[in-house]
């Protein structure tokens, strides 16, 4: 294959108000898996978007072999053998796998040689262990399968350097293993893989070379042998000691705040989403439901929050059943939705309007806005929750992901709810913000019962008192986080394997 060395020299990229990449030097050797490690916002994706032709650097050069290249589009980069799988897949949902793979290719010019393409795709998927049916349409595929299609798309174009942006965030533990095996297969032929991640264990497991980025700069170039411990790597990435184990003391359990009895419900298309779910959450505990996204969690939460009807069973909030369409009392239930921008906040309204969203009746007396009281509340919450804002009259969309999430927590927790439903509360946040969110949840646990929905095993193990594993809408098992011998089973259970 004789692939050339790729060098990025002094890459600098500015966005309005942000220096995303600050004179970054990076070498990509053929035949190796390179991990690009860093927190959210460290500049990893920007750097790789430059390498894959999506952005153009403000300063600096990219060299393939000895030749300096200037990409003005992703297709230029593909010509040089560099391709990227983005975090959000770029697939046409109502077309087949084979059609997606050939999309944008200049040859064949007009006629699609479907059979030929399908055969080639099948060959590739056999060689690399990327099982997917070339005639299936994308919308029927799981996220893991869609990712395989994206990788096949690059292999079909005979790319030498594959860039994967946070590839494991949508995968089950067993799918992650398969992906890693595939990646090892790919580099064995002299291709190289660049792997963007913020997960330390993945880096240690698979990388040959590690580059740590922090705030747009390279902090270290390492090989796994150089790394003394994960703690050391975490320190490089974050720049300060990170508590990886959260201290939490057991609390005396209070009354039951949420109980589900044999609940079943449907998704938007009318397919069964969850079946016969029963559990109870008491004040003073965090009960987690862990599972890969798309296994019925969001429908379950919508049913609990009264946002969508469910089909059978009973949901009791504070001992009172709310049937089908009715909603639980908003004042005493705090809800952290998964979709921060789409549901949790109103991006185009200001902080004040966002902070009063779920308690606005309090701030309107005789229908008139109580400006003073609301401002006081806002200023108090901004400082109490350490929310960093451009200015106090800013719009919600001007906040970073972590600060927006803290704003939502502040809003929900300020009502002192007795039940909190938190859906993927740290998804997409960096370690610093994640920690703050965790600490807040633990603080709330002292006076509330918390239902935590998460796909992040580490989060669940750090925070929960009890854990339920969900797979295809069923609870595979519920156990206490004290039962250490169960912890190893969670991964397989998330993938549908029950302990035999």
């Amino acid at each position: 294959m004789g692939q050339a060395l790729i060098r990025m020299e002094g890459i600098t990229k500015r966005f309005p108000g942000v220096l995303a990449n600050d004179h970054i030097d990076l070498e990509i050797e053929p035949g190796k898996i390179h991990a690009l490690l860093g927190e959210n916002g460290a500049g990893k994706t920007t750097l790789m978007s430059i390498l894959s032709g999506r952005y153009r650097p403000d300063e600096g050069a990219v060299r393939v072999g000895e030749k300096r290249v200037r990409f003005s589009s992703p297709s230029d980069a593909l010509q040089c053998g560099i391709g990227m799988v983005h975090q959000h897949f770029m697939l046409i949902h109502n077309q087949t796998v084979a059609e997606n793979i050939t999309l944008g290719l200049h040859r064949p010019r007009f006629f699609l040689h479907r059979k030929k393409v399908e055969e080639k795709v099948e060959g590739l998927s056999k060689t690399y262990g990327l099982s997917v049916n070339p005639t299936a349409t994308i919308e029927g595929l799981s996220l893991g399968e869609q990712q395989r299609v994206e990788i096949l798309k690059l292999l079909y174009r005979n790319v030498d350097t594959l860039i994967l942006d946070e590839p494991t965030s949508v995968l089950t533990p067993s799918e992650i293993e398969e992906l890693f095996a595939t990646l090892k297969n790919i580099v064995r032929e002299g291709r190289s893989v660049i792997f963007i991640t913020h997960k330390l264990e993945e880096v240690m497991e698979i990388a040959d070379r590690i580059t740590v980025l922090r705030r747009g700069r390279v902090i270290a170039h390492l090989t796994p042998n150089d790394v003394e411990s994960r703690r050391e790597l975490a320190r490089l990435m974050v720049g300060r000691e990170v508590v990886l184990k959260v201290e939490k003391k057991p609390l005396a359990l209070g009354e039951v705040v949420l109980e589900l009895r044999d609940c079943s419900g449907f998704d938007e298309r009318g397919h069964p989403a969850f079946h016969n779910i029963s559990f109870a959450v008491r004040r003073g505990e965090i009960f987690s439901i862990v599972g890969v996204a798309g296994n019925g969690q969001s429908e379950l939460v919508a049913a609990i929050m009264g946002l969508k009807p469910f089909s059978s069973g009973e949901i009791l909030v504070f001992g009172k059943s709310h049937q089908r369409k009715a909603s639980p009392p908003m004042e005493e239930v705090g809800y952290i939705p998964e979709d921060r921008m789409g549901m949790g906040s109103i991006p185009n309204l200001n902080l004040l309007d966002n902070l009063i969203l779920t308690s606005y009746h309090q701030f309107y007396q005789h229908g008139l806005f109580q400006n003073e009281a609301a401002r006081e509340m806002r200023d108090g919450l901004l400082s109490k929750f350490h929310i960093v804002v451009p200015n106090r009259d800013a719009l919600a969309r001007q906040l970073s992901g972590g600060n927006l999430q803290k704003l939502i927590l502040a809003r929900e927790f300020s009502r002192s709810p007795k039940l909190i439903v938190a859906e993927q509360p740290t998804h997409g946040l960096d370690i610093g913000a994640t920690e703050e969110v965790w600490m807040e949840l633990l603080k709330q646990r002292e006076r509330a019962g918390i239902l935590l929905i998460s796909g992040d095993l580490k989060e669940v193990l750090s925070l929960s008192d009890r854990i339920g594993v969900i797979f295809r809408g069923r609870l595979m098992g519920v156990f206490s986080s004290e039962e250490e011998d169960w912890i190893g089973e969670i991964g397989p259970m998330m993938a549908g394997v029950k302990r035999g």
Partner: protein
Amino acid sequence: MRIAIERRLNPSTWASWGGLGLSILLALIMGGIVFFMVGANPLKAYSVMAAGAFGSLYNISEVLVKAIPLILCGLSVAISAKILIWNIGGEGQLVVGGIGSAAIALFLSPYLPSFLVLPLMILAGFIAGGLWASIPGLLKARMGVNEILTTLMLNYVAIYWLEHLYFGPWRDPMGMGFPGTAIFPESAWLPRFPQTRVHLGLIFGIVAAILLQVILWRTRWGYEIRVIGENPKAARLARMKTTQYILWVMFVSGGLAGLAGMAEASGIHYRLQQGLAVGYGYIGIIVAWLSRLHPTGLILVAIFLASLLVGGDQLQSVMHLPSSVGLVLEGTLLFFVLGSDFLSRYRIRLSPK
């Protein structure tokens, strides 16, 4: 060279107002080119327009006369747009409002004490326009029917209905065949400011604008409307009654346009006739968007567009230019202002290839 478009993180108010000024200037320059192309001296054309709109107190008062329906129709579009509904049926709602108030003036006023006639006409105009807009409102809220289509189509229904009335059953028997209803009794005339045709409708418009401003930014209703319009999902989370609000807002939106129709019929024409539906409902859409849905700012925009209308009429009578030149100017203006709006939110950078 390559052109990159980037979103501004913090759109500055300075840039957005500066942009507005610049875009008006550019629109005037473009308009000048159009004047040149139809063989007129642009400077002379603009001075004719300016004189026509602001040359005398009477001309200024005529600008205000046209601004009245524009303010009310603009508010009608703005309030519905705030809740994310495109009510482009202002024209039809205006017409139906006019019909409603005319029914009181023509058939009920003989039986009423005269001080009650106008209040009842105002009420009838508002309710008639509001009910007319509630048809698409109901279809939207209950069945999700696209309101852009229904409001637009109902315009034609309303206009033909109006024509049917003044050509047919409501035609003035003493009118010598002139298409129109009988003149309203004097108790049904909106009082005018002395020496002008400016009528009490101006006060309706100003009061409505201030009321809407206060409601939108100071009351719970306004908060709920803004949240529903900006993010319906967040509104559901906060248990807001979206469907009810859509119905109410559509009713009020139609009511404002209906009020414009009432004011036109009872303040200008004193009857129903052909001049009632002359496009104020459509220009109201432009007024609303040029003012960025800002109720009190909308008054100024309405006056500005009215001055273009009045000044444009002068082009026709003084310089014998086609009346469509005025429309071209209006369109150019909208184009540039929307462009500047875009530029205040995004910036364009040129970078060497």
